[in-house]
């Protein structure tokens, strides 16, 4: 029989949430919902309301930059277990990019409107979440810089 993981289990098992108290884990789990996206469909699009963040359960998502009259540029991809989306943290809470499912993709989406209110009213929780999102942002920035420098050009080997 296939064992289906609950959202609470998934949150507990993801290293991103490691170290959070039971109270906060329950709170976050309570804001989560399962969603699935067919290949080619969009999780969100540039300019849309950033009222969620995601944990990818299974599949792949391309973060893309739309350019009129040309094919969108894929900036980075996300795979199983990855956290996706931090625009919900930053006013005016708009997505900066498109996110397109590369294949059938199952995610847990977390209601950021519900979480934002809690983060404002409970600074300790806000700090715990900030500690987790800053490394994600840091990693993405580091990766983006490496992608920018065209590091594979050059030598003959």
């Amino acid at each position, binding site marked *: 029989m296939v064992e289906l993981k609950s959202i609470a289990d998934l949150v507990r098992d993801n290293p991103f949430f490691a170290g959070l108290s039971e109270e906060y884990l329950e709170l976050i789990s309570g804001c989560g919902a399962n969603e699935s996206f067919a290949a080619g469909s969009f999780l969100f699009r540039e300019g849309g309301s950033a009222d969620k963040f995601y944990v990818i359960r299974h599949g792949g998502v*391309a973060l893309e930059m739309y350019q009129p009259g040309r094919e969108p*540029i*894929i900036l*980075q991809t996300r795979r199983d277990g990855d956290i996706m989306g931090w625009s919900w943290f930053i006013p005016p809470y708009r997505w900066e990019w498109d996110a397109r499912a590369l294949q059938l993709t199952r995610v847990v989406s977390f209601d950021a409107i519900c979480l934002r209110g809690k983060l404002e009213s409970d600074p300790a929780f806000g700090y715990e979440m900030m500690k987790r999102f800053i490394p994600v942002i840091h990693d993405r920035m580091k*990766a983006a810089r*490496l*992608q920018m420098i065209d590091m*594979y050009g*050059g*030598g003959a080997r």
Partner: protein
Amino acid sequence: MNDPMIPAPFRVKRTRKELEDTFTLELAPIRNSRPFHFSAGQFNMLYVHGVGEVPISISGDPGDPSVLVHTTRSVGTVTDAMWKLKQGDTIGIRGPFGTSWPVVEAEGSDVVIVTGGIGLAPLRPAIYHIITNRKRYGNVVILYGARTPEDILYRREIERWRSRLDIDVEVTVDRATGHWAGNVGVVTKLVSRGGFDPSQTVAMVCGPEIMMRYCVQALNDQGVANDRIYVSMERNMKCAVGFCGHCQFGQAFVCKDGPVFRFDAIERDFYVREL
């Protein structure tokens, strides 16, 4: 090897365009029919008559010494001239030189191969060896990064490796458009996905130095110690036997003490910017 300073004549058996700026030469000795034995990771000095000599890693199968294979990028006078060679032309070869990938030492361990761009060419002999002797290794993970999907070296071969059920192969590119359904992002990101036991892993890393720097960090973050990480260094090698000093790297000469180094042996010099 006789006098290491005298090139032996080889004939071009076949040339192949791999990418827009990258090509492969298949060579065979002219004067004697002895097979060309080498270890995975070693390099040769290739001399284009009347033009000059350059160090190029051997990228063929160490288990098939009947043909000598070099893949290189056309980046200067000598490699430009090399690309113009045709079947039947001759070229001078000195070698093989240098240290090799620890394919024997890695037996019994998981193996992680992290490479980017043309850095796959010096690692391909190690991959051939590991595939030939697959049962001697634990999990085998190959992580490869390229600039774009069009810049993926040995693409058909990577697809073949990927279709095997006993090797994990992941490819990522720095830039892509909508036709690409694979990974986009830096190769270091693939390291964090694991698939190996860090304490029982030997990592072999080859690519631009900046890529290797961040790959070592990513491997360390996963728990792989520096004495289990091997990198292939690239410097301006001229004599290839440690006489001229062109390739001096701290206390080592890349041509004879390298190009493959265990990372803990060069860690201090690796982070010295002037070297």
